[in-house]
């Protein structure tokens, strides 16, 4: 209902109220993994632990698939979904590589060389031209 001036930024989900509402239980599931007792429960029986949170079937499937971008698309926020990644032993930089479809080494090299440049990455229109 509200104008979203940030919708034209490429490769970016701005976590606003609409996303927050959609992702509510997905994010609450992810943050549950902050505590060891919940990590143990998820290790022991992933489906049982997931079922404690009112996630949609799509969200559950994205968790099963560890489809990191899909999780964001379905309302997940990176600070929550990264707790699922931490559960899997994935460090943040490798998670970032996966989300941007790069190999671990290529991503790491890109960062050491100064990061992903801003030129060409400000507007969706710039990506569509590629």
């Amino acid at each position, binding site marked *: 209902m509200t104008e979203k001036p940030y919708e034209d930024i490429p490769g970016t989900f701005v976590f606003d109220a609409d996303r927050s509402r959609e992702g509510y239980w997905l*994010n609450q599931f992810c943050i549950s993994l902050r505590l060891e007792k919940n990590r143990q429960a998820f290790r022991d029986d992933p489906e049982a632990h997931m079922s404690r949170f009112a996630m949609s079937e799509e969200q559950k499937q994205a968790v099963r698939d560890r489809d990191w*971008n899909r999780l964001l698309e379905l309302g997940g*926020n990176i600070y929550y979904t990264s707790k699922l990644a931490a559960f899997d032993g994935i460090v943040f930089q490798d998670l970032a590589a996966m989300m*941007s479809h790069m190999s671990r080494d290529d991503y790491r090299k890109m960062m050491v060389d100064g990061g*992903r440049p801003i030129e060409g*990455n400000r507007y969706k229109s710039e990506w569509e031209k590629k």
Partner: protein
Amino acid sequence: MARITAGIACSHVPAIGVAMDKGITDEPYWQPVFKGFEFSRKWNEENKPDVVFLVYNDHCTAFDSSIIPTFAIGCAAEFTPADEGFGPRPVPVVKGHQKLASHIAQSVILDEFDLTIMNEMEVDHGLTVPLSVMYGDRKPGDDWGTLVIPLAVNVVQYPAPTANRCYNLGKAIRRAIDSYPEDLNVHIYGTGGMSHQLQSERAGLINAEWDQNFMDMLVNEPDKARQIDHIEFLRETGSEGIEMVMWLVMRGALDEKVTEVHRHYHVPASNTAVGHLILENHG
């Protein structure tokens, strides 16, 4: 009277904490990051504050989705480092200054800032990494060497408070501290940033030129810096670059003119551009 003598800006990248906790700060990857903190630790030793007012954000640790305060001030006696998913950082419990915290909360609320008061709160890397940067290695049984008043700012769910609002909150915090009768040397930290995006296909975005301009502007033309809007932060500095609004709280609490005694900028630490400033008040 209590007085703010300096402001410190500092990224709070979790990997900086991990590098210290693992003792790998001498590795070639980390050496240039920590090189820039050597001056800071020496300066901090020589300018010891009694209290650090530490502006940071919680990264979905103490606050889950059920409650999202725009500004939450920690008024507890102590704040325990949180388990963020791989066990708590091996660092000391953070001790608060309850009387000053309550005084600031009261003063700032009467000044028409709508704080949330936290009487129990765990703290994550957003708060402990800047302390590690300035105070060096400290183990769980140690003392941090300062009391800390945490101010957690929502920068996770859009919209964060505006840069202008943050700057004005800094001014209100300054008025509150200036009116506290006890002699206390207070440092104020603005943490987070600089440019970084942790999510989705644009992850790894860095905008070094923007970051350097921002530091110049923050130091010398804060009235310009506080006009930066959310869309500029998001577009130019990545979705997580919005954390830089917290630097404005720090800057608002300082004099109009400050002395920049230290600047450090390095890319990368993990996914992030590391920025760091030490600004001294003339007062």
